[in-house]
């Protein structure tokens, strides 16, 4: 896809996220299928892979839960469009809800009312980060409710150390069984504070499968946790098998001496994401 207006690019990114699973996730699922020895687990992976093809070929959402549209924006401080970004993103979501269509998923917690267009208080949710330069990178992560319900925060006593973190992640993922639609991608956020650990965990989900944390200690924990969680046998959809998780990604911040916050963010196999780059000249493109 070449240069577009920002409206076209955001619409295209939302459609791509809902209907086309990123290649790294498809590859992860294919590899999981190749090593699956349980016929019941293998049948789940076959259905997932066939579903992914049907959605892509028909340009229809891969899951009926098209999620809460969550954005991560890295905004270049020299971009002339900073004041327009929020409005553009909100408009793109209401338009995409009609065009694709997306399931209207935003509900008022007090009245139970659903505006029907995925808008609402703080919705779509936008995470902002200011960066150098004049480009703006907008990532969209439509996150389903079933896996989000399995995300959790643990405030561990620091004395349990990294071993305590590993155990807590394993015990939590096993307790989820098939509910978050495994094989999942697990984002592990460590340190910072309660909210920061959760946010880091969610940011970790945005990373591609196969990527590793550049800090060797964190990368070693990612690798070890992936191997250990897949040794539990929970398997695809919790029916037993070799692959419970496609990836474990760790992001961390320094912590308070008295705290060891651990955010465990769970993403279903439908790890939907897309990215738009908006240049200073006003042209935009879908880059991932």
């Amino acid at each position: 896809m070449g240069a577009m207006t920002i409206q076209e690019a955001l619409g295209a990114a939302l459609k791509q996220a809902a209907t086309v699973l990123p290649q790294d996730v498809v590859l992860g699922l294919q590899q999981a299928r190749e090593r699956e020895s349980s016929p019941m687990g293998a049948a789940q992976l076959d259905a997932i892979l066939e579903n992914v093809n049907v959605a892509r070929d028909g340009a229809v959402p891969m899951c009926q839960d098209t999620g809460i549209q969550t954005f991560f924006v890295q905004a270049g401080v020299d971009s002339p469009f900073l004041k327009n970004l929020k409005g553009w993103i909100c408009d793109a979501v209401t338009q995409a809800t009609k065009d694709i269509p997306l399931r209207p998923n935003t509900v008022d917690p007090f009245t139970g009312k659903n505006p029907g267009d995925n808008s609402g208080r703080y919705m779509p949710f936008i995470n902002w980060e200011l960066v150098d330069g004049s480009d703006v990178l907008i990532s969209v992560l439509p996150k389903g409710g079933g896996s989000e319900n399995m995300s959790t925060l643990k405030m561990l006593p620091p004395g349990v150390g990294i071993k305590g973190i590993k155990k807590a992640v394993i015990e939590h993922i096993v307790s989820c069984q098939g509910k978050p639609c495994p094989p999942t991608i697990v984002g592990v956020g460590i340190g910072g504070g309660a909210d920061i650990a959760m946010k880091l965990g969610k940011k970790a989900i945005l990373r591609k499968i196969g990527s590793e944390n550049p800090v060797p200690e964190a990368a070693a924990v990612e690798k070890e946790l992936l191997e250990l969680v897949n040794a539990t046998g929970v398997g695809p959809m919790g029916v037993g098998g070799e692959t419970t998780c496609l990836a474990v990604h760790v992001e961390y911040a320094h912590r308070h001496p008295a705290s060891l916050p651990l955010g465990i963010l769970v993403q279903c196999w439908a790890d939907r994401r897309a990215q738009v780059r908006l240049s200073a000249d006003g042209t935009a493109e879908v880059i991932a």
Partner: protein
Amino acid sequence: MKREITLPVQPEQVREWRVGDILFLTGTIFTARDEAHLLMLEKQESGEGIPFDPSQMALFHCGPVVSPDGDGWKVIAAGPTTSIRMELFEDKYLETFRPPIIIGKGGMADRTQAALESVGAVYTHYTGGAGALAAKRITAVQGVEWLEELGMPEAAWFFEVKDFGPLLVTMDAAGNNLYKDLEPTIAANVKDVLARIDAS
């Protein structure tokens, strides 16, 4: 064992199916989530009854995305929803309406298991999130009940399906339960994994 099934099916036939069997259904299935279950039970108790016979179909725990299409409807996506929410009243539903097959996600608990055994029915697991594949195997929307009262996801939709699956039998009419069978193996694996972390 892979089984290609044409609905309706009789309880005697269903009692022969076992946990681990994979079904592909052809025929009519209907959707019901929390609200539709409750409404149908109320209507039956009040003597009004319901305008179809669930024993001739399969019950699908699903809140589909459906679009108007000419005079009718078109299914956009229709994957399973989490079944355990229906545990509160599924035993009563099974005993009242006798659907021979439940299609859902994640399994159910003891009360449903007992009702499956008494009426001769199975619970089957459909792959979570496979909403586009499900929509492709739905060849027609035959109708909908209670759309005004319950809204799109909670209404009872009637789908004509062809080779709808894979539906993995995870609870059968002989009392077998895949989830319970897996528990001791997973618990032993977890114990081993935690010991490896301690030893590292």
